[in-house]
């Protein structure tokens, strides 16, 4: 089974920058994830949304990368949100307490709606 290296596309919406994540979030994903985050924050959005719709695997190293992004967001007073996680990874976000520090939404629409009113 070949590793599906992470690709990230950055979209800019009116109140939010969206990172469309495609592939696996593991140790191989560090460079792509950090580069995309840097691109997203270059225009100083108040909120950055991680869209996990096309992510089918996150391991403990990937969790650490997400913790790193969350720390960066908090240090710059930016909100980091997540959407389209599978049921299993919602559970993992809950037990790791990531969901205590970054709101998790079932889809992009609800995340964008939340970002636009806050």
């Amino acid at each position: 089974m070949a590793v599906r290296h992470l690709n990230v596309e950055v979209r800019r919406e009116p109140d939010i920058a969206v990172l469309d994540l495609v592939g696996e979030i593991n140790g191989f994903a560090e460079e792509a994830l950090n580069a995309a985050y840097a691109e997203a924050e270059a225009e100083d959005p108040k909120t950055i949304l991680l869209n996990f719709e096309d992510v089918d695997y996150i391991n403990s190293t990937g969790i650490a990368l997400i913790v790193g992004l969350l720390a960066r967001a908090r240090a710059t007073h930016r909100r980091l949100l997540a959407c389209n996680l599978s049921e299993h990874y919602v559970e993992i976000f809950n037990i790791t307490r990531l969901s205590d520090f970054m709101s998790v939404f079932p889809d992009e629409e609800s995340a964008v709606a939340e970002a636009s009113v806050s």
Partner: protein
Amino acid sequence: MTDPNPARTDANLRRTLADFSVPSEPGKERLAMETVAEAVKVLDISGENLERLKTAVAEATMNAMEHGNKYEAELPVEIQVLVMDRDLIVRITDRGSGPPPPEEGDTPDLAAKLEGMQTPRGWGLFLIKSMVDEMNVTGDEGHHTVELVVHLGSEGGK
């Protein structure tokens, strides 16, 4: 001496579903978890419990590759998938001989990690323990084995 757990040693109650190895290369943990998932298809494990098992297998295999085999590709991580009595058991063995991981106090402190007081890493063992009913560690001078146990049945798995 009386065996304290005779069910575990009764060959009549033991069934091997898979016995394979993967090289100690980053990313090969996915091969391990998908092979285990295929092997346990014969069991009635619900979708969410199967996802938990897969995560535990992947994390334990990563630990074996990294800490036990130091990512030396020629050193295999050996994986056995067994059913014993009413338990599904996955044994993951590397060539390390280090001490077993700490049993207590290993819940990561996310707030401390976000404040930069701890490394962002250190989630693997916590995830393994959270995903299965039991985790046991054994070893000798040349081998180190992590045993993942899922109690089968309608409530099997955490």
